[in-house]
């Protein structure tokens, strides 16, 4: 098929026709590595190497197990359950269950996309994520599976493997299977790895089929925020992650020439992905905006697909008389299946409110039904929202008896009772302030014995802010170009670009999304390469500097020092890990094919990348983090991240942990504790920034690179903690590592700590990588 047949609102896709033809002809001559399609235990030794350095620190979120009828079992301290399981094993078992849920979600999502794309475009539809610019189109599939997919149909084999592994992994969590926490953790890494591959499958399939931006650096700027919606038009809201129903809506609007008449708005990853299909779509916000936006009454029709959709969205939709259309087998919401009914009949039933919503499992129907319904209900609804008006707030607030139940249920311990007291006296400032940090969970309302609509009151008090919510976000670009990798590969591996920092994941932020935007800007200014994806990408755009510009307007979208690269939705995360892997393959010319351990060893020792999931919340976020860990990429989470039950922490005070092979000589040499941790929660944004800078250091840094990284680490430490870090001496290997501008104070510390110069190795954890073997391997 010709790409010209794919109508998108993106104009500039001339290159594509050329590249498709050629991708087919390319033969893959790379020799097969040792571990294609790895099983549960294939990479166990690699995992154990990492887990030896980064021992799990378990923080049980529950002391009991209730997974079988012998329970509940009290596992506190040294106690074991009736099945014999220990507390560490039970915690890692729970982590594995969590990560399996996340991986299942991405694999299920990928399978659905590949099936529907195969049906619509044919199995031999070519994969193309960037034409000539992206020859390594599927680095993770190549790495893990050892195959080079060329068509949509080629992805079936990959999915078969992922589904098989997932089934085996889930079986591991049954009573009386694995008993060792280390083995559970190794399987967590395995689940993370297959999750990463699943994300790659999903994103390269949708990029290839729907004509999403193909690794372009400057994608269009998309309007973002509730204030950006033209409420005079009928408004459709799409929520979730699985984009085909939303694509159908866009196609229908184009076909019927209604694009200018109807507003298409979205929340979460479906909105990110639909804005890759048409720059006219508007993104409202991350998933924490669901209640706010629905309660504003602005959407006339709500279309949900899958993942992260509030389970009470149908109830909320009914409150604003907005019909809801469910479109995915995984999320039917109890609605009647009307897939085989005539669209006009379905529309009539929803417009007359005979039914609150419908289930439509055939994507091709969704556009027509959603559009017609929106157009017909819009005039009737007149955007009836139910934020209390300012004059009503005072009256409602007076019902508050200061019992504090709301605050005790708020994940961020928000001072709601205090805000209510002030509001009862006519001062709404505290309520309004809460808008920025509220994650929109409505647990406060569930707790309030006075039935005060607390969340709605926060929204009512923040009406002016809502109107001002107008931002810009760059559409997700997908993959990183090979040429970009060639250009930055050297500076990254040498440490001269101080790091690649990826802000990913959900919006369970401790103090609002602004902190993500601030961190993005800080690291881009410091000339790190900053990537964003998913809800974090949206949050990063919802803040303007003094000149009224967002991070996406301030910095270029290219994968270069000082770039802010929005790769896209959650499944686009694969391109971030993929970029790290491509550095090993394109820049360092290492074989990727079925060669996981060697490439992970390369990435771990040389590529100063850090993932930051500041609002990590879901099981998918846990899976995404796990995929990074196996590649040796550390992940920082916000304070809520400790609820994932364990950290993977290095101990810089234990010298024996930080010896590595020098591949040149085979000697075991002390490097620095770099990266210090593999999974760590930060308490505050300030602490996170210091951690990020530090975690970007790698054993392979040249002196010039290490000096640049140390400059950032020491400077951020001084600025945020008020002092020079007490571990700088561990990161200085030779005097040339010391940043010139900080020489006096660092040399003073080196003298105090009796520092001695040491060599900079060609680092590897794998004895087989030693070129001149001195050790027995």
């Amino acid at each position: 098929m010709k790409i010209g047949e794919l109508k998108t609102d993106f104009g500039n896709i001339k290159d594509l026709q050329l590249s498709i033809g050629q991708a087919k002809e390319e033969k893959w001559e790379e020799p097969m590595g040792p571990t294609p399609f790895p099983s549960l235990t294939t990479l166990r030794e690699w995992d154990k190497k990492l887990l030896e350095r980064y021992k799990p620190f378990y923080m049980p979120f529950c002391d009991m197990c209730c997974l079988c009828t012998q329970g509940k079992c009290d596992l506190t301290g040294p106690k074991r359950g009736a099945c014999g399981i220990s507390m560490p094993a039970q915690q890692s078992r729970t982590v594995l269950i969590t990560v399996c849920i996340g991986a299942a979600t991405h694999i299920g999502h990928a399978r659905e996309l590949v099936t529907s794309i195969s049906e619509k475009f044919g199995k031999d539809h070519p994969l193309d994520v960037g034409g000539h610019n992206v020859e390594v189109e599927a680095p993770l599939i190549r790495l893990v599976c050892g195959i080079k997919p060329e068509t949509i149909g080629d992805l079936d084999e990959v999915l078969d493997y992922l589904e098989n592994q997932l089934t085996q992994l889930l079986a591991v969590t049954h009573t009386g299977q694995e008993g060792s926490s280390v083995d559970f953790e190794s399987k967590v890494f395995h689940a993370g790895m297959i999750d990463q591959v699943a994300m790659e499958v999903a994103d390269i399939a949708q990029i290839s089929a729907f004509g999403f931006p193909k690794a372009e650096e400057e994608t269009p700027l998309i309007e973002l925020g509730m204030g950006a919606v033209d409420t005079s038009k009928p408004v459709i809201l799409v929520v979730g992650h699985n984009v085909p129903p939303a694509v159908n809506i866009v196609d229908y609007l184009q076909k019927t020439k209604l694009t200018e008449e109807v507003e298409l708005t979205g929340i979460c990853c479906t909105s990110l992905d639909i804005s890759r299909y048409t720059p006219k779509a508007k993104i409202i916000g991350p998933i924490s905006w669901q209640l706010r936006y629905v309660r504003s009454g602005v959407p006339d029709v709500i279309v949900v697909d899958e993942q992260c959709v509030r389970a009470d969205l149908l109830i909320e939709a009914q409150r604003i008389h907005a019909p809801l259309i469910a479109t995915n087998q995984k999320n039917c919401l109890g609605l009647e299946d009307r897939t085989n009914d005539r669209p006009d009949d379905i529309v009539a039933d929803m417009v007359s409110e005979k039914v609150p919503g419908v289930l439509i499992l055939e994507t091709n129907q969704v556009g027509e039904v959603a559009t017609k319904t929106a157009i017909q209900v819009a005039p009737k609804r007149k955007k009836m929202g139910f934020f209390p008006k300012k004059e009503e707030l005072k009256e409602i607030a007076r019902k508050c008896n200061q019992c504090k139940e709301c605050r005790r249920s708020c994940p961020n311990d928000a001072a709601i009772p205090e805000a209510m007291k002030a509001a009862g006296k006519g001062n709404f400032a505290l309520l309004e302030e809460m808008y920025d940090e509220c994650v929109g969970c409505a647990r406060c309302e569930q707790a309030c014995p006075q039935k005060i609509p607390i969340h709605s009151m926060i929204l009512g008090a923040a009406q002016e802010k809502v109107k001002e919510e107008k931002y810009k976000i760059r559409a997700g670009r997908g993959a990183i170009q090979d040429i970009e990798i060639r250009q930055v590969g050297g500076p990254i591996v040498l440490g001269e670009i101080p790091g690649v920092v990826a802000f990913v994941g959900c919006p369970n932020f401790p103090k609002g999304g602004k902190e993500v935007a601030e961190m993005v800007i800080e690291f881009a200014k410091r000339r790190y390469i900053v990537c964003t994806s998913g809800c974090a990408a949206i949050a990063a755009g919802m803040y303007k500097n003094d000149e009224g510009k967002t991070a996406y307007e301030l910095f270029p979208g290219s994968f270069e020092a000082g770039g802010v690269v929005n790769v896209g939705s959650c499944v686009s995360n694969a391109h971030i890990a993929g970029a790290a892997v491509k550095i090993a393959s394109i820049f360092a010319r290492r074989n990727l094919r079925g060669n996981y351990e060697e490439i992970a060893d390369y990435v771990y020792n040389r590529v100063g990348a850090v993932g930051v999931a500041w609002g990590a919340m879901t099981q998918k976020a846990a899976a995404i983090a796990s995929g990074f860990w196996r590649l040796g990429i550390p992940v920082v989470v916000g304070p809520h991240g400790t609820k994932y039950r364990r950290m993977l922490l290095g101990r810089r005070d234990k010298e024996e942990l930080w010896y590595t092979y020098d591949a040149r000589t085979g000697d075991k040499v002390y490097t620095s504790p770099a990266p210090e941790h593999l999974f760590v929660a930060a308490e505050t944004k300030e602490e996170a920034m210091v951690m990020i800078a530090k975690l970007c250091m790698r054993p392979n840094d040249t002196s010039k690179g290490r000096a640049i990284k140390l400059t950032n680490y020491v400077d951020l430490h001084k600025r945020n903690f008020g002092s020079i870090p007490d571990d700088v001496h561990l990161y200085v290997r030779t005097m040339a590592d010391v940043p010139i501008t900080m020489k006096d104070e660092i040399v003073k510390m080196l003298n105090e700590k009796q520092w001695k110069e040491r060599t900079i190795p060609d680092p590897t954890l794998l004895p087989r990588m030693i070129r001149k073997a001195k050790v027995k391997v």
Partner: protein
Amino acid sequence: MANNEAWMTAEVGGPKRASLITKPEVAEAMIRRARRPILVIGHLAAEIEMEDKKLIDYVIDLATNTGIPVVATAHTGNAFLGRRFTPASIMSAVDIGNRLADPTWKGIDGNGPYDLAMFAGLPYSLAWTLLSGLKNFAPHLKTMTLDNVYHPNANWSFPNISIKDWIINLQAIIRDLGE
């Protein structure tokens, strides 16, 4: 709410839950008995207002009166230094938690493991999980929180008390231990 209900309603404790510090003498006795106590102070200490002072001011008084070393987590170090108090170490909450759980850790000063860790000023759910880690994996260590909310996973915790009662308790502890 009952005295020994977790401050966050849903974060109920497990079978093993903290004993209540019902009066300052209970905490004082614990601190006096400890050979190697340590204070772990989170960033909220510099934010929580206690009438004309902040929580961090009480922590400084306690540390100064007793000589107990302070680990400042997150960016709390800045607030301490701004008050001309130098913490013994700056470390993240999970880092210090991980070290405290290690019975072979020699401590910040290298003089041996701690036997009492006192916490204040950490976000509630972070402290909850951290204390759970120590409850389950640090049998050699007693934990106590000085926050005014009940923490089921500590060995000793105040019940959920008002700022006023909190001030009275902390003042008494600081005074009595300084004598």
